[in-house]
Structures are given as C-alpha cells and as structure tokens.
C-alpha cells in the first residue's frame, strides 16, 4: 500500500479512479462532480455588496466548500506524505520547446522558473500567474463549469453542451500553449 501511495499512478489507473468520483458523489449525496462552483460560493460568502448572480444561499451549497477543502488536504497528503520521488516523464519535444523559451524542467508539478515570487513581479510572470488565474475563474463561471464539471461529469452523462464547452476549453488551451505562452515568456527580452 505504501509503495502504491508513494509512486505516480499510470493514466489508466488514475482515469478509472477519477471516473469513479462521479458515482461516488451521486450515491453519497446526489451531488454532481465539479469544482469551479466552489469558487462562486466563496465569492458569494465573501463579497460584502450585492451582486444578483451571487445573491443566493451559498450555505446550502456548502458541500462544495468541504469538497474543495478536501482537495487541498489531499494535495497536502500527496505532496508531503506520499510524494513521488521521481519526476514526471514529460515528452522531450515539450521540454525542448519550453527550455528554448527559458523554462527549465524541474520535478514537483510546477516550473520553479515561473512560479516564484520574483518572477511574479515581472510582466510575463504577472500575465501567466495573475491574468491566467483570472481567466480560469472568469472563464469557468462563464462556461458554467470546468474540466471536472463539464469534462468528466458532463461528458459521462452524455450532455452535448458539455462537449461544446470542453471543445472550447481545448481550442483556448491549444492557442494559449502553442502561441500565446511562448510570446509572453519572451516579453521584454
């Protein structure tokens, strides 16, 4: 068990486990898998002035917040207790292209070249971290869901609007990863 927990899992194991989150949430409490709605609840809970879209009883949706807190806890357990000592095996083409734009590979999920406090104060760092994050929050709410809500839950339940949403996520992501990110990484150089 500890060896299993301390290594990374192949995609077909992980895929099955992620897929099983759908029936788990349905059976445990009739809940649809999704994470981005918890961001809306946090906004509804924290924003002091009235915005109609946030004017609802977020406490009724508080399961979202517990689920979100659980993900943080799960990340903590996986990151500290069950950390995989091996780095991800990323395709050479990807790593080569990124290193040409000044991002060197390191293990631990996120590039240290980007996700550090001094890079955050540069123009490319601000765009990647702050503007990127803004679009994640703005876009998921506008699209009515994220990768879990549309990608896993929506597609698992044969909802064609989710397919359109996921296709749009990928069009945006492909444009961004292939053209915008290299452009931004080289700003000011």
């Amino acid at each position: 068990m500890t060896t299993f927990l301390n290594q990374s899992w192949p995609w077909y194991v992980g895929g099955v486990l992620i897929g099983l989150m759908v029936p788990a949430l349905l059976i445990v409490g009739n809940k649809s898998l999704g994470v981005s709605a918890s961001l809306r609840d946090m906004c509804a809970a924290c924003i002091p002035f009235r915005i109609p879209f946030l004017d609802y009883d977020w406490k009724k949706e508080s399961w979202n917040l517990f689920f979100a807190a659980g993900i943080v806890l799960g990340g903590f357990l996986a990151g500290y207790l069950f950390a995989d000592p091996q780095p991800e095996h990323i395709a050479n083409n990807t790593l080569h292209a990124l290193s040409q734009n000044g991002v060197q590979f390191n293990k631990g999920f996120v590039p240290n070249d980007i996700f550090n406090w001094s890079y955050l104060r540069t123009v490319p760092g601000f765009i990647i971290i702050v503007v990127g994050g803004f679009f994640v929050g703005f876009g998921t709410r506008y699209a009515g869901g994220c990768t879990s809500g549309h990608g896993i839950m929506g597609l698992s339940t044969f909802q064609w609007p989710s397919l359109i949403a996921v296709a749009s996520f990928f069009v945006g992501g492909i444009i961004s990863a292939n053209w915008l990110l290299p452009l931004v990484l080289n700003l000011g150089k």
Partner: protein
Amino acid sequence: MRNLRYLLLGTIFGIILCKVQAVSWWRMQEMFRFNAFYMYGLFATAIPTGMLSVWLIKKYNIKTISGEPIVIPKKKFNWGYVIGGLLFGLGWAFSGACPGPLLALIGAGKLVVIIVFISALFGTAVYSWLRPKLPH
C-alpha cells in the same frame, strides 16, 4: 457533520489528481502541444468509467445512501459555454491548472499558486458582476 463525507471525497480526489499528475503544469503543456498521449489517455479512461457508472445507476435504479432517487441536472446550452470556455482554455494553459488542481497544488505547498487561486476568485467575482451585460 453531514458535510464531512464531502471533505473525505475531496481528499481522495485531491490525492488522485496529484498521483496521476493531472496537477502538473508540464502535463498540460504536453497535452496542448499534442506531444504525448498521457492526458488524453486519462480522459479516455475517466469518461467511459463515469458513463458506465451512470448507466449502471440508471439500469439498477440505484439510490443514494439516504434512499433518494439519483438526479442528474441537465445542462442547458448557452453561448457562454463557448466564449467562457475559450477564455478558460487560455488561462488553463498559462497557469497549467484548472480549479481542482489549483486547490491540490496549494495543499502540496506550491505557495505562488495561492496568487493564481486568488486571481481566479477575482475572475469569478468580475464575471458575476458583469454577467447581465455579457452575451450568453
């Protein structure tokens, strides 16, 4: 107390997201550049697993643990799915994470990701505020 079950399921989900490297910024770049099958394989097993589970729930009329019939809300299409979806995609490739992985990365001690998360909350708030003026 009832909500603790969601804390537990969230914890499991967070562990899975890390263990399959779905939280990895590198994996997202690789996926969007079509350089590896890994993430596509992940989706291609997760979605059929979900589909099969939902099919079994319907076929055997499985109830929730408290005995209620299971309801799956229908998603109604609006143009926000396309416009918002494109914008989310742009941000997803920059930050390398969708909302679930963002939370898991914060738990895993990637402190700068807290700024991504706060920015995402700000994005959600701005959308909520602008919503009446946006095309849907």
